[in-house]
C-alpha cells in the first residue's frame, strides 16, 4: 500500500497513513475546529510484521456516516524513548488516550500538557509496558510490586480555608472502586481529582490470547450493565472485518436487545437518582420497574444481563419468538413507566434538587469528547444510532433526543425521553415480528475471519457510544482488540460538573452520569 493513499476497507471506514510531521495537521483537519469528533485513539504494536508501532486516531463528522482514521507510522526513537506528536493541545479529547498509550506501550506523547501516568498506579517498574506483544502476562505478573503503588500526584489546591476530603477506593455504598480527592471550601467543591483504573483487568491483552468467538464472553464482561452493548459492538467489528451482513431477523433482535438494555439502565438510573436525593419511594419504584425488566431479560434470553446471546454472525436466542406475549409485557411496563415519571416529576422536593445541580456546559462537553446521555443533555446531538445507522436502526423511525441545559435535571429528563423512545422501538419491532415481516435465520452458519483484517464496530450503548477496533494476524487470530467504553470519554467531565456544587450533592451528580469504572478501566 503506497504511503498516504486513502483506501476503503468497509463502506464507511477509511484509513490514511501519515508520517509524524503530518500527524498533527491531519488530525487537526479532521477535527475541523471542534466540528469533527475524536471517537477513539489507540496504539498497535506491529513490530513483528516489521511495521513498528502505529497510532490510530478515529474521527467522524456530524452529518456524515464516515469514520476517517489517521494511522501514524514510523514513530521516532529519541533519547527519552519512542515519541509521537501529541494532539492534545489542539484536541483536548485526546488527553486520556495519549496517557493510556504512554502507560500501555511506552510511546510518549510529545507536547502533552499533563503526561502523568493514568492506568497502572506505578505497580510495575519503569519500562514495563503491558500491551507490547513481546511481554507475556506471566512476565508482567512477575514484575508486579505492590509496595511501589503510587497515588501521590494529586492536584493540590492551595488557599485560605481549602481542605481536602479523600474518599475511596472502597466506597460506602455497593459501588465500584475509585479514589476521589475533593478540594473544598466549606461545603463547596472547588476541585475534584478522580483517580481511577483500580479495576483495570488487562482486558485488551486478554483478548489477544482468545479466539474471536471466545472474545464475546470477555466483551460481555467489560461492564456489567452494558454487557449486550459491548458484545454487540465487538461482534459488529468482527463481522465487518469478515465482510458479512447479518440476516434481517438477527439485526432486528440485536436492535431489540440494545433498546431493552438501554431501557432497564435508564429506568434504573432515574430511580437511582432518587437515592441521591434521599427520595426513598422514588428509588423503590424505579428498582421495582428495573427488576421487572431484568425478569423479562431472563425470560427472553436466560440471562438477566443479556449475556450469552451475541455471537459473531448473529444471535443465539430467538427473542422474537413470541411477539404477542412480549408485547403484552412491554405494554404493561409502558403504563407503569408513565405513572413512575408522572410521580417523579410531580415530586417537587426531588425535582428541585436536580435543577441546576452538576452543570456541564456544551463547550466543555464538546472539547472533552463527551458521549451519550452526558453529551446529549448538554446540547450535543451525538447518537450513533442516527449518525451511523446500523443493524435495524435504518428501518426504524425515531429521533435522537437532546436537552440544552446540562444539569442533573436535564440528564434525568433526557433519560425519560429516551426510555419512552426505547419502549416505542421495542413495540415497533414486536409488531413487525408479529406481522411476520422479520422472518429468517437468527445467525449466519459461520463467520470466516480473514488474515490481516481490521475493522471498527460500534453501537450506542446505555451510557453512550461504544467502539471496538479489531484486527487479525497472519493466522486469522486476534492481533489487536481495542474496546472504547463510553465512560472512558465521560469520566474527565466530572471535575467540571461538580465544581461549585456542595459535597453532599456529589452522589447525586455522580448518579446522574452513572459512569462505569470497569468499562473505562478495562
Amino acid at each position, binding site marked *: 500500500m503506497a504511503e498516504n493513499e486513502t483506501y476503503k476497507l468497509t463502506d464507511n471506514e477509511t484509513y490514511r497513513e501519515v508520517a509524524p510531521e503530518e500527524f498533527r495537521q491531519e488530525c487537526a483537519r479532521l477535527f475541523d475546529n471542534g466540528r469533527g469528533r475524536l471517537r477513539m485513539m489507540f496504539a498497535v504494536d506491529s513490530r513483528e510484521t516489521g511495521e513498528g508501532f502505529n497510532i490510530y486516531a478515529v474521527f467522524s463528522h456530524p452529518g456524515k456516516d464516515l469514520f476517517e482514521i489517521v494511522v501514524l507510522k514510523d514513530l521516532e526513537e529519541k533519547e527519552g524513548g519512542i515519541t509521537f506528536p501529541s494532539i492534545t493541545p489542539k484536541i483536548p479529547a485526546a488527553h486520556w488516550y495519549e496517557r493510556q498509550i504512554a502507560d500501555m506501550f511506552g510511546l510518549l506523547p510529545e507536547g502533552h500538557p499533563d503526561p502523568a501516568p493514568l492506568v497502572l*498506579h506505578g*505497580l510495575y517498574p519503569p519500562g514495563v509496558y*503491558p500491551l507490547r506483544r513481546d511481554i507475556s*502476562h*506471566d512476565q*508482567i*505478573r512477575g514484575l*508486579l510490586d*505492590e509496595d511501589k*503503588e503510587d497515588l501521590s500526584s494529586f492536584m493540590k489546591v492551595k488557599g485560605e480555608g481549602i481542605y481536602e476530603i479523600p474518599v475511596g*477506593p*472502597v466506597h*460506602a*455504598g*455497593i*459501588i*465500584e*472502586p475509585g479514589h476521589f480527592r475533593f478540594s473544598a471550601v466549606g461545603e463547596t467543591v472547588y476541585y475534584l481529582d478522580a483517580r481511577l*483504573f*483500580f*479495576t*483495570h*483487568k*488487562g*482486558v485488551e*491483552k*486478554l483478548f489477544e490470547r482468545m479466539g474471536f468467538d471466545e472474545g464475546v*464472553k*470477555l466483551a460481555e*464482561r*467489560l*461492564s*456489567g*450493565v452494558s*454487557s449486550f452493548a459491548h458484545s454487540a459492538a465487538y461482534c459488529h467489528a468482527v463481522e465487518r472485518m469478515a465482510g458479512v451482513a447479518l440476516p434481517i431477523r438477527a439485526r432486528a433482535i440485536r436492535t431489540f436487545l440494545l433498546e431493552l438494555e438501554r431501557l432497564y439502565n435508564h429506568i434504573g438510573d432515574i430511580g437511582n437518582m432518587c437515592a441521591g436525593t434521599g427520595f*426513598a*419511594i422514588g428509588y*423503590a*419504584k424505579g*428498582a*421495582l420497574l*428495573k*427488576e*421487572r425488566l*431484568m*425478569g423479562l431479560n*431472563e*425470560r427472553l434470553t436466560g440471562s*438477566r*444481563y443479556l*449475556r450469552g446471546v451475541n455471537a459473531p454472525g448473529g444471535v443465539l436466542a430467538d427473542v422474537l419468538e413470541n411477539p404477542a406475549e412480549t408485547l403484552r*409485557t412491554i405494554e*404493561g411496563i409502558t403504563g*407503569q413507566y408513565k*405513572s413512575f415519571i408522572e410521580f417523579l416529576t410531580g415530586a417537587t422536593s426531588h425535582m428541585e434538587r436536580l435543577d441546576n445541580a452538576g452543570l456541564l456546559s456544551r463547550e466543555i462537553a464538546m472539547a472533552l469528547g463527551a458521549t451519550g446521555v452526558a453529551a446529549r443533555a448538554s446540547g450535543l446531538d451525538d447518537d450513533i444510532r442516527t449518525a451511523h445507522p446500523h443493524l435495524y436502526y435504518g428501518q426504524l423511525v425515531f429521533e435522537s433526543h437532546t436537552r440544552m441545559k446540562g444539569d442533573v435535571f436535564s440528564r434525568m429528563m433526557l433519560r425519560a425521553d429516551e426510555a419512552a423512545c426505547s419502549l416505542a422501538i421495542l413495540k415497533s419491532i414486536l409488531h413487525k415480528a408479529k406481522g411476520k415481516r422479520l422472518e429468517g435465520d437468527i445467525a449466519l452458519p459461520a463467520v470466516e475471519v480473514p488474515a490481516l483484517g481490521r475493522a471498527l464496530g460500534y453501537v450506542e450503548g446505555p451510557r453512550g457510544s461504544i467502539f471496538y477496533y479489531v484486527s487479525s494476524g497472519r493466522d486469522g487470530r486476534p492481533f489487536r482488540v481495542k474496546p472504547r467504553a463510553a465512560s472512558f470519554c465521560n469520566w474527565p467531565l466530572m471535575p467540571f460538573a461538580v465544581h461549585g456544587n456542595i459535597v453532599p450533592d456529589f452522589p447525586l451528580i455522580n448518579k446522574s452520569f452513572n459512569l*462505569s*469504572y*470497569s468499562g473505562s*478501566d478495562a
Partner: protein
Amino acid sequence: MLARILYNIIGRKQALPESELNAMAGEGDILMAAGLKPGGMGRIFRRSVRIRQVDAGSCNACEWECTALTNPVYDIQRFGIDFVASPRHADILLVTGPVSAAMANALRKTYLATPGPKLVIACGDCARDGGIYRGSYAVTDGVDKVVPVDAYIPGCPPAPARIAAGIMKIIEASSKIK
C-alpha cells in the same frame, strides 16, 4: 424493613402481577423459596448480620445483584441481613471481582479493619478463581489469593436469590461448627 413498608405502600397501586413475580421466583416469596428463614441466623450472629460489600475489580454485574437484594422485591433486610458502609461495622465481607492488582492492598486493609469473628465470602466466578480474567497480568486470580475465604458463591453473576441463599448457608454452617 423500610423497604418492606415502602413496598406495601406502593405495592398497592403498582404491585408486579403475581405471574411476573412467580416467574422470577419460581414459587411464592423469592428468598423464602431460596431457603431464607426470618430469624434464622444461628448462634454466632443472632438475628442480625451486617455485610460490607467490597468490589475488588469486578465487571459490576455482581454488585448490581447485591444491590438488588435490598430492593422491595427481595428486601433482604427482613431477614436481619443488611449492607453497611464501614468494614468496622461488618460481620461479613462479601467480595466480588478477581481482585485486580490495584485493589489487592485495599482489600487487605478492609479485611484487617473488619473486627472478628468475621466471614469472607467470594461472590461470583471471578472472585473464586479469576473467572474469565484468570491469568491476566492485572489480576490475582481470586479473593483467596489475597485474604482467607470461608465460602464461595458461583455464578457470573449469581442471581440475587442465589447470593442470599449462599449468605444464609454459610451463616448456618459456621454456627454449627462453633
